[in-house]
């Protein structure tokens, strides 16, 4: 039995089932409120949900045994010039009780008590380059947090539109990891921090390898995010938002191409996931069971997730159409897990 936590424009949904037998909705929480992201931390069994009320502001809630508690400390310094706009992502860290959360305006929070209380990571918030940071269309969002298995002090972050940030000392210091990234929305040769990363994922069995979906471009890094090589040849489009990997295979990555930045829908009305098993040298379309005509879906950056690994890797993605699709065989075949949900913002599976 797999549990999917689906964050939507109108609340959090839990689905339980399997790609073969189908899924049932077993929970709806925060009805009517946008839930940008939710996951269950397997270490504590708590659900952590970022709820972005347009009225009352962004809040992070912790769910345990059916009861929800608002987490403390998910806010910017009082009396400053900025307010927290959104919580984009929540990621378990490598140490017990540690979690990270990324938000808008380009901020990182850390919890050491399983998500009940949080502290702003000041070293990033007060970074001297911050006055030059610029937002992407979705805001100044810190949306990707890649931990390093077994090395809790090493993190890779990605922000839209401030590129990749790396730390080897638990966030005491940060440096860019943008060598090789090219932004087509800037004049050629322009030196800029305005690098619009859409998603960043680490290959856990070879942690120095990362894959990236960029705002036009799919990239791979083999040096822990210091430099990047474009690997988008062979895709129908190298524009898209989310990216997933098979944890068992460092040469694997999955993307869901959208037509272009000017037309953020699945190309030609066909929904297809593209898989590489050779680190981006070639890509294979995986669409068996997915809508093949008149399907113009938009899949957002947090709405693609996996569970397990190898031939039994389960993959799930949701679209703003309210559809959720799943595969129980590493993308070879797909089925519909849910239809007619509110627009899907995020999909995460239990471990």
């Amino acid at each position, binding site marked *: 039995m797999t549990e999917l936590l689906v964050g939507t424009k109108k609340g959090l949904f839990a689905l339980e089932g399997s790609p073969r037998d189908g899924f049932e909705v077993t929970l709806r929480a925060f009805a009517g409120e946008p839930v940008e992201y939710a996951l269950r931390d397997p270490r504590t069994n708590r659900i952590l949900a970022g709820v972005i009320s347009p*009225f009352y502001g962004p809040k992070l809630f912790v769910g345990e045994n059916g009861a929800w508690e608002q987490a403390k400390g998910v806010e910017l310094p*009082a009396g*400053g010039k900025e*307010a*927290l706009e959104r919580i984009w992502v929540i990621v378990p860290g490598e140490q017990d009780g540690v979690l990270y959360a990324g938000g808008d305006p380009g901020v990182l929070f850390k919890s050491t008590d399983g998500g009940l209380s949080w502290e702003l990571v000041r070293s990033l918030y007060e970074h001297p380059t911050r006055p030059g940071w610029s937002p992407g269309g979705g805001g100044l969002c810190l949306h990707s947090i890649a931990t390093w298995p077994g090395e809790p002090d090493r993190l890779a972050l990605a922000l839209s539109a401030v590129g990749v940030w790396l730390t080897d000392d638990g966030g005491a210091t940060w440096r860019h990891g943008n060598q090789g990234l090219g932004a087509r929305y800037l004049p050629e040769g322009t030196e800029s921090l305005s690098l619009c990363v859409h998603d960043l994922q680490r290959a856990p069995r070879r942690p120095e390898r990362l894959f990236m979906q960029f705002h036009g471009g799919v990239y791979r890094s083999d040096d822990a995010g210091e430099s990047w090589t474009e690997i988008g040849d062979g895709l129908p489009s190298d524009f898209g938002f989310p990216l997933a990997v098979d944890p068992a295979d460092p040469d694997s990555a999955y993307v869901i191409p959208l037509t272009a930045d000017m037309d953020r829908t699945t190309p030609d009305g066909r929904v297809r996931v593209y898989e590489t098993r050779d680190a981006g040298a070639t890509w294979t379309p995986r669409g068996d069971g997915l809508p093949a005509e008149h399907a113009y879906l938009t899949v957002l950056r947090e709405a693609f997730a996996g569970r397990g690994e190898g031939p039994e890797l389960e993959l799930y993605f949701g679209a703003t159409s309210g559809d959720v699709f799943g595969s129980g065989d590493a993308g070879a075949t797909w089925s519909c897990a849910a239809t007619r949900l509110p627009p899907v913002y995020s999909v995460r599976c239990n471990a």
Partner: protein
Amino acid sequence: MALVRLRGPLKQLAGGPEHAVAGATVAELLTALERDRPALHGWILDERGRIRRHINVFVNGERGGEDTAIGADDRVDVLPAISGGSA
């Protein structure tokens, strides 16, 4: 002290719909209310001390802002704005 009236989740978080609060301006009043009712912290005012974008504050039935002066017998309603909703 002025009387602050709340609805919806704000009422639940504050433990009731009406609260007598002291303050010379709307900002002072709401800061004091959030301080006295910690569960309300950050729900009406953001980190900058501003009234959240889609919350409206009315003083004796007239739309007010952070700097609106408050008298001892004033009635202050805190309401979600229609602008915050979406289809």
